[in-house]
């Protein structure tokens, strides 16, 4: 089945140790998003790629970076994770066309920072 896949599902890292989260999609969607979701909160958009164009949210910390080497894959790099970065990280994809755009979410990666 076509879907949004995230690896790993659970990631444990140490304070300050870089970590990379992975997202892949078989939907051939042109937009890929990264969200941060903390417990009992709504997802918060970090950034997205519209094709190869990177769009960063104004309040996303510099500690968070992203790469999209091809249509199918997108990575979230956290350069120096702090305790406050522990959260669920959600990847979503969409096929943006005109004024319609539906996002489909992956299962998320739960990040623990020790």
């Amino acid at each position: 089945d076509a879907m949004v896949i995230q690896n790993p599902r659970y990631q444990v890292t140490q304070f300050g140790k870089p970590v990379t989260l992975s997202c892949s999609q078989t939907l051939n969607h042109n937009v890929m998003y990264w969200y941060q979701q903390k417990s009992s909160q709504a997802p918060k958009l970090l950034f997205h790629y519209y094709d190869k164009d990177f769009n960063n949210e104004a309040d996303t910390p510099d500690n968070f970076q992203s790469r999209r080497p091809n249509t199918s894959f997108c990575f979230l790099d956290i350069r120096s994770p702090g305790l406050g970065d522990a959260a669920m990280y959600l990847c979503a994809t969409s096929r943006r066309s005109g004024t319609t755009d539906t996002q489909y979410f992956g299962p998320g990666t739960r990040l623990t920072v020790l």
Partner: protein
Amino acid sequence: AQSVSQHNHHVILSEAASLELGCNYSYGGTVNLFWYVQYPGQHLQLLLKYFSGDPLVKGIKGFEAEFIKSKFSFNLRKPSVQWSDTAEYFCAVNTFGAGNKLTFGGGTRVLVKP
């Protein structure tokens, strides 16, 4: 900036009761409206969406939502809930012409007692 508000943070009800979750947004331009559901331990799933046309939209699992443009509202309803509807429900609005981003409401946790 656009915002989305959900009226209730927590709702507790018994099986067979009717459910209505309120959602209001603040943006006067073109919008796509969504309800997502997050079952315990699972990823965000699309429940239903509204782009245009009939303001009463039907989604999966017996849910429906009504778009009232004059009230900037998109309320979710289900006539008779089941225990399996226990989940967190997020209203989300995609605004075009204002960054084209998906903004989530704060979520409503629904607990259905058997």
